[in-house]
């Protein structure tokens, strides 16, 4: 008999579950409240805010307003382009640098590692004044490229740090065998090491993606034009303008929540494994 049965006696288990359920409700209820009220008519939103929509109160009027008044499809497209391009560059450049740092001994290896790790602690936002000047000087203001550049720089330090940890665990025999077979260092990296660290890459991808998709600061400063607005900035502007049209506001909020929510449900295991793996170090 294991000693740990003493730790999970019934009253204690009930207390633990009660506490966790209580906090789960606190965490989830506000989000659900917004999403299900977004498909109710105005009277029901105010009259019975807590009840679920019924056939009588169901309406999509808010979504219609958002879809026709705002440029949401364009914003979605912009967010998607910026996020996918940045994540791709962070993964590619980050993995390459991580491979150089973990695989080869060369003069300045440690120093280079420290230099690249600096950015984990120092927020890139503090350089905004000069970043904007640089983007103005190079004509990149109000382009999606400026956002991709900033997010790539922002994502690289943590990506390199995590990926280098994982690459150190890749068996050296495997790489050396490939070297004996005459494979170039580039092919070893792309064909041997990259596929092996794919789980770590997925973790880094999710980590990099969330702050980029959600960022308000840089879109607001570097690319606020109508053609380059991201969903987050678009939702912020829209919410400001339509503050009295509750159907539209709730629908806009739900539209901004649902893609991230879907992504989260898809990747939550990966994300959580990533945090626990990283923290064990």
């Amino acid at each position, binding site marked *: 008999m294991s000693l*740990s049965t*003493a*730790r*999970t006696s019934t009253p204690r288990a009930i207390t*633990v579950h009660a506490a*966790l359920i209580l*906090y*789960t409700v606190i*965490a989830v209820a*506000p*989000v659900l*409240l917004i999403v299900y009220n977004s498909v109710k008519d105005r009277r029901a939103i105010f009259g019975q*805010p807590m009840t679920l929509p019924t056939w009588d109160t169901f309406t999509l009027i808010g979504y219609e307003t958002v879809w026709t008044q705002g440029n949401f499809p364009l914003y979605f497209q912009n967010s998607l382009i910026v996020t996918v391009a940045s994540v791709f560059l962070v993964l*590619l*450049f980050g993995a390459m*640098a991580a*491979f*150089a740092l973990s695989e*080869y001994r*060369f003069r300045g290896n440690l120093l*280079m590692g420290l230099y*690249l790790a600096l950015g984990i*602690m*120092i*927020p890139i*936002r*503090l*350089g*905004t*004044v*000069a*970043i904007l*000047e*640089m983007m103005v000087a190079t004509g990149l203001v109000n382009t999606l490229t400026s956002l991709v*550049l*900033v997010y790539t720089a*922002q994502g690289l*330090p943590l990506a*390199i740090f995590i990926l280098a940890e994982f690459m150190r665990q890749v068996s050296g025999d495997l790489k050396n065998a490939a070297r004996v077979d005459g494979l170039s*260092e*580039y092919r070893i990296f792309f064909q041997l090491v990259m596929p092996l660290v794919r789980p770590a890459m997925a973790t880094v991808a999710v980590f990099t993606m969330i702050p980029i998709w*959600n960022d*308000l*600061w840089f879109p607001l*400063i570097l690319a606020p034009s109508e053609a380059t607005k991201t969903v*987050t900035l678009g939702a*912020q502007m829209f*919410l400001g303008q339509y503050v009295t049209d509750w159907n539209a*506001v*709730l629908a806009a*909020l739900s539209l*901004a929540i649902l893609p991230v*929510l879907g992504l*989260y449900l898809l990747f*939550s295991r990966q*994300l*959580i494994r990533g*945090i*626990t793996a990283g*923290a064990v170090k």
Partner: protein
Amino acid sequence: MTDETDLKPPPRPWRWHIAVFLAPAVLVYTAVMIIPLFETLRLSFFNRADGQTFFVGIANYARLFGDPRWAASFWNALWNNAYFFLIHMVVQNPLGIALAALLSVSRLPGRAFYRSAIFLPTILSFVIVGFIWKLILSPLWGVTPSLLDLIGLRWLFAPYLGLETYALTTVALVSVWQWVGIPMMLIYAALLTIPEDLIEAAEIDGITGFSQFWRIKLPLILPTIGIVSILTFVGNFNAFDLVYSMQGAMGGPNGATDILGTFLYRTFFGFQLQGGDPHMGATIATVMFGIILVVISIYLFIIQRRMRRYEF
């Protein structure tokens, strides 16, 4: 005895691939992050008048700290920011530790569900979180009063976001609601790494439940709590989005929720009648940079070093 020269490895040819692997990351990172940070520092020593930029030494800093109006805004923002951080340290991190301790109870069904659900708000953008809570707390929409009514605390209701006394605490608690998943996860991960035999030994000695947590587990996860605290600090002193989307760029009501991030945004970008001033913006950013740097250094050189010593 071997000749010393024999021990030296033969000079290796310049390995181009190392440079090729490093170059893209180093270039982007240096150009878009490191150089702008230094450039911001440099800009803070300059000013602009009549289309001309000229060196002014520490005049911008003298203005920030010496001009009563600038100084008042700065100290107000700094104080609010410190309070914002304090709420996170007092509410978010203990709550995160408690949730992690509950999650790590052995053989707990539904663990993965609880973990994912509590982490959910963390993946939402500040804009969404800010607006959700603005609606929920709004006196127009009776959700909060009727909820308080349900538990007999109706009298507690007030327009929390509109009152100077409550606004900052309310915004900070919303931020806690959003971010509590991070300390929970990190501490949960740390709790998992405690060796099972250590816990069993404690149980044989009759140390279980709460006292086991306080006396065995908590000391072991102190380094993680240290990391969580420093992450909280950097995040809080760099915060902007939540206040901006809940209370606007002025950090209203009447500056009660103005933090360094909103102060920087207003100064740099301009707001309503006030024009933007990149040089004062750079000055504020540099001061923020300094504050973050000093605290990180203190943490790295004093706290973390001392913790290492206690580990064994």
